């Protein structure tokens, strides 16, 4: 028998999407990665114009290397954000991985090639614990990872006892602070590798696509035959794994680690900021890792530029705060489907009366 032919008359296009009439500004904002590259270059060039020392090859490779721990964490953070989660515990996972590998390196001169799988394994285990609480106990991710942030931080302190990692084998220092060739530091290799690999996995594999499906609408994903719990678990495990890698990167870059490494700089919040500035959202199903990687570089350059431009260093976190606000405002503007002027006008006219948005599914 032949198929269901002839074909049915096409369904008339429904509510015409407002896509056709996109303004130039909106198109530019939609290309988050390009925008960030442009902004990073702009900040770099302006700073270079003021202080030519900023553009030296030594400084460029320092900037690149210095941004890598954050960049790797931001990549992992994006993955949990895509499944509509969040992971505050990455700072402690980074810390645990950094001190465990650090002491082995310091005391036993352990090879970095042995430490790499160890750091990854630590990260996966701790990430899996997060995932299990999220999936089995159904506790909101922000609370789970707040709790494990505290617990893992305790583990980190226990590993340290009263000691700190102060000397690591020379090879570690080379990896963390020397260049592979010309201005390209060794540190850039794992960062780029992880980003490219994750970008491909997210885009081209059914695992990657199921992350987006679960983040976009977990019920629909369940109905479409996706093993939602397994996908969630895997997202937290991968995020943990990358945080473990970030810990090793931290160790080789700073040649030291202690009980406060990671949490003292609130790197978990920086990673969230980088992921969001990079175009990933907390509402799930959107974004990617390339943007997060570039956003981490952007944050690094901006913070260094702020210092070079003579603004006291204390304002660096304020700069991040403002950038974060700007990023979510841009997201809001993009998703609203109206022009900026309409959005403002509508917001102003609304005043006390608000149009309640239908709350779908779980928040956060």
């Amino acid at each position, binding site marked *: 028998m032949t198929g269901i032919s002839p074909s049915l008359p096409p369904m008339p296009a429904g509510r015409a999407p407002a896509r056709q009439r996109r303004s130039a500004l909106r198109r530019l904002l939609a290309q988050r990665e390009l925008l960030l590259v442009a902004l990073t270059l702009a900040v770099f060039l302006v700073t270079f114009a003021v202080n030519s020392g900023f553009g030296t090859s030594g400084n460029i490779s320092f900037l690149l290397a210095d941004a890598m721990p954050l960049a790797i964490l931001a990549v992992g953070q994006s993955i949990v954000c895509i499944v509509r989660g969040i992971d505050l515990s990455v700072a402690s996972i980074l810390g645990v991985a950094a001190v465990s590998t650090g002491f082995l390196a310091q005391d036993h001169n352990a090879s970095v090639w042995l430490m790499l799988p160890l750091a990854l394994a630590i990260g996966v285990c701790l990430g899996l614990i997060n995932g299990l609480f999220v999936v089995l106990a*159904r506790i909101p991710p922000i609370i789970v990872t707040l709790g494990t942030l*505290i617990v893992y931080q305790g583990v980190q*302190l226990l590993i340290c006892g009263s000691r700190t990692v102060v000397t690591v084998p020379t090879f570690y220092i080379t990896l963390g602070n020397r260049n592979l060739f010309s201005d390209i530091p060794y540190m850039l290799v794992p960062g780029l590798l992880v980003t490219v690999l994750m970008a491909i996995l997210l885009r081209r594999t059914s695992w990657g696509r199921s992350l987006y499906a679960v983040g976009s609408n977990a019920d629909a994903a369940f109905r479409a035959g996706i093993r939602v719990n397994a996908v*969630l678990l895997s997202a937290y495990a991968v995020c943990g794994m990358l945080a473990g890698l970030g810990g090793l990167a931290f160790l080789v870059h700073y040649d030291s680690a202690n009980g406060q490494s990671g949490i003292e700089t609130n790197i978990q919040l920086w990673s969230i900021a980088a992921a969001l500035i990079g175009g990933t959202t907390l509402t799930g199903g959107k974004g990617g890792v390339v943007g997060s990687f570039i956003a981490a570089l952007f944050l690094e350059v901006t913070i260094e530029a702020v210092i070079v431009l003579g603004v006291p260093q204390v304002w660096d976190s304020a700069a991040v705060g403002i950038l974060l606000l700007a990023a979510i405002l841009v997201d809001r503007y993009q998703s609203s489907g109206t022009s900026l002027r309409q959005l403002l006008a509508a917001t102003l006219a609304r005043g*006390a009366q608000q149009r309640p948005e239908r709350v779908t599914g779980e928040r956060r």
Partner: protein
Amino acid sequence: MSVATQPAKPTRRGWRALDTNTRWLLSLVGILVAELLYFNLGVSTFWGGGWGNPNSLLGYGEYFLFTSMMALGVMFVIFAGDIDLSVGAMSGFAGVMMAEFHLGGMNIWLAVVLSVVLCAVIGLIQGLIITFFKLESLLVTLAGWFILQSAAVAWEGPVPPYNLPSGFESALGTGTIGGTIPSQLIVFAVLAVLATLIVHRSRFGRQLVLIGHNRDAAAYAGVRVSLTRIRAFVLSATFAAIAGMCVAATYGTARDDLGPTLLLPAITAVVLGGVDIFGGAGLVPGVIVASFILGWLTPGLLQDGVSDTWTSIAIGILLLGSLTAKGMSDRGQGTLLRERLRARLGTGPPTSPPTSVDSA
């Protein structure tokens, strides 16, 4: 009760007849009592030199009461289904602002009041940004945290302001009333009573809770949702600022670094206290009890010879363990634990099972 009777439905008695919130509160009280019994009987030094001694039951308050105050503040926001991550930095900023005002020649109490009011204004601005642009409170207050922290560090300069008047330090910090009751405890008690009344007995509190349960339904029931949420952010900032005053008074100096470390314990207290992180459900006394459980746990375990590392691990485990237990008991009433575990381990959808069969 004039409501007509429902056809034969077995009435539950005793423990099971209580609603979830009350059961949770009673459990917390039980935990607190057990904790105090253990520390009092098992740890000889816990009582220290009696009531008035700084190293005894009430005296320990100065290590955690400001965290409890911060918890009460952020609790308002959590009741409405939002979150405020800026409270830690807010308290640090408030302390610095107050100290700088004072060092600039202002009367200490005027400086205190002015700082609290200005922080309330900052909370107002955050609330306005969140409701006006419909942004997620988590992110806006995270940005607020970063900005406030920078501002505090920048303002205080290289040397944190110190040398605050002893009257101020005594009144909000280390002083006692009659040598027994720490003055900070009085401040906390006032705030605690106030918070309880606001949430459970005022119109604003009722509307706050309704918003937390169902924001859309609240809007349709005529609740001014944005206004109410903004007021919660103002309260949160105000309580954080008061906590910041107490921190400054206790340590004799404005400390921009301490505030942010108080945020996580504060949120832990709220969640452990039984307030639903998604808003709505919860009791303020639960938060108060939880903040004492957490507060006394640290000095208790330290006196018991447990390292402070294990203490912080214990707090994290307490948070996760209690929520897991609570979640299991709330959701699976009447089914076997084994079945519940199996159902959860299966490929069930991530949302809770439908509670209504109306749409069948």
